[in-house]
């Protein structure tokens, strides 16, 4: 779904997010007042030194964790007060995740891993199969549909993870250091792939990363430091 002209919709909206881990003397202020809107079609990178709060912020947006204060809205729906099951459903329908460690299900083949989210979403068998194969083809894995993760390279596993993140047609794909475990050639290929998906299909990406190769492609660059956003620039 692409938008015309300057009319932009915020897919994710964070208002006054803080996150404190622990209590008293040991309290860690991981996020200190984040206000951020991610727009439809963004291809945004989230950078900053280690410990600056990138992962914490991505977890808040992805409904994996609750902020101490503030409110996160995803696709117009506020996350405050949702039950565990409701949050699971929201992740299933609106958010795609890509992790540094791939997090594929080891006993499922590439196709089954991609189909898995469609099964959770109760998509019909026939549609599931064709959508999963199309997603795998899109990430360049035709012919490897029946392999299990253990029979795939790191780059290939991450491609499966990307296909899985995309197949449910999420409103946003969140990626936390998606290339940290990969060599530079594979990193380049994956960034190209994600960039193409953003350009051609208008899929919104938000990526936490240290990798200059990833940042080089970004259309919007957000810098964090010590739990705060210190710059937010579009190129």
């Amino acid at each position, binding site marked *: 779904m692409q938008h015309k002209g300057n009319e932009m919709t915020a897919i994710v909206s964070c208002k006054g997010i803080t996150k404190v881990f622990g209590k008293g003397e040991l309290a860690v202020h991981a996020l200190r007042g984040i206000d951020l809107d991610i727009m439809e079609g963004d291809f945004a990178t989230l950078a900053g030194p280690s410990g600056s709060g990138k992962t914490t912020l991505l977890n808040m947006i992805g409904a994996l964790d609750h902020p101490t204060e503030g409110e996160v809205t995803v696709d117009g729906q506020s996350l405050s007060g949702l039950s565990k099951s409701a949050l699971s459903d929201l992740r299933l329908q609106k958010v795609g995740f890509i992790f540094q460690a791939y*997090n594929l299900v*080891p*006993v499922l083949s590439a196709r089954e891993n991609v189909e898995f989210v469609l099964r959770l*979403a109760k998509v019909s068998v026939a549609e599931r199969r064709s959508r999963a194969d199309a997603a795998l083809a899109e990430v360049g894995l035709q012919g490897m549909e029946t392999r299990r993760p253990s029979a795939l390279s790191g780059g290939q596993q991450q491609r499966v993870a990307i296909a*899985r993140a995309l197949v449910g047609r999420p409103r946003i794909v969140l990626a936390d250091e998606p290339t940290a475990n990969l060599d530079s050639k594979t990193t380049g290929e994956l960034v190209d792939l994600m960039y193409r998906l953003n350009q051609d299909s208008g899929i919104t990406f938000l990526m936490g990363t240290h990798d200059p190769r990833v940042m080089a492609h970004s259309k919007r660059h957000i810098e964090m430091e010590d739990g705060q956003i210190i710059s937010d620039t579009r190129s």
Partner: protein
Amino acid sequence: MLAALAWRNIWRQPVRSILSLIGLAFSSLLLVFMLSFQLGIYDTMKVGALGLLDGYGQFQPVGYDDDPDISRLLPNWQALVEAAELDGINTATPRASSFAIMASGDTSFGAAIIGVDPVTEPKVSTLASTIIEGRYLAKGDEATIVMGEGLVRNLGLTLGDNVTMLGTGNDGAVAADVLELVGIFSTGISGLDRQITQMPLARFQDTFNLGDNINVIALRGGDFSAVLQAAPALAHMAETEGAVYLRWDELQPEVKQMITLDLSTAMLSYGVMIIVVVFILLNTLYMSVLERTREFGGLMAVGMRPTQIGTMVWLELIFLSLLGAGIGIALGAGVTLWVENVGIQFPGMDEVFRQWGISGRVYPDLSLLSAVAGPGVIVISIIILGLIPYRRILGLEPVTAMGAA
């Protein structure tokens, strides 16, 4: 989907799963065999103890069990013999009995004398099959008697000798007869072999002045449980005629007591075994749940609900325990059926067993109960206790789960 995933997860750790299965299967096998064996012994005991003389049930006059006096007569016994027509009952045989002095030359001994119907009696009691010399009473016999070998020896008799019997009749008058020894039995129970004698019922009724009255009717059916099932109907019949019906456990309360005692001791050891197996298995599974916490975090991140993950793990447990118990039941049934054909001999135990009417060889008895009870308890305990890992998974937070080592 959850079931398929659970099934595959089981085989991710094939060694661990196979070890769990072996443990489960082996303990199920043991439980099936031991329980079948035990129930088999009980059956043999019951059949042996009651089949020899008492029968699987008896109609008696009120009070006869406490004071078996010849003057206690079974009312309207011709109607009670009809019990043989009931489902599960094969034969009903009338008896009358008293005590008498048996004399031969200068020697005399007291013994029980039972008047029996030579035709129906052998269908109820196996005494006739323990004849070691001569023959059992036959249709048309008149002044004949069969005795146990102990009494025969004490009296110094040989087959064909005459025995003088002296007792008290129903009317209090002297009852005397001279009977020909036609058969000697040896039941292996020395008390019986010294004290029991049998003669034709008709002659007994004459001698003891009973008219055509009797004291008890003994019953037998195809198998024990069938007779037990007919007990309420039999009790009703007895009540109608003003008599009482005694089940096997009322005829031989010691057998019942011994079975109950033995069974409760056995239950204790089965219980301990089941507890050990269940806890080892749950521990293994719980470890694998802890190991996979990270993975569960990943599954939650892509939108799987904690309840779905919990159900998946619970299904793993159910599949594993059903499979293990199934294999165990199959193997246990196989072993039991095989032993059922050959029997087991306990050297040196013959004498003890014989007291309970069991021959030297013991046979297990595989039944639905003995096959399913033990493994069933294991499976049900595992399924119920499997809610512990289930609850743990419900409490997982995706971020902490993903952060777990």
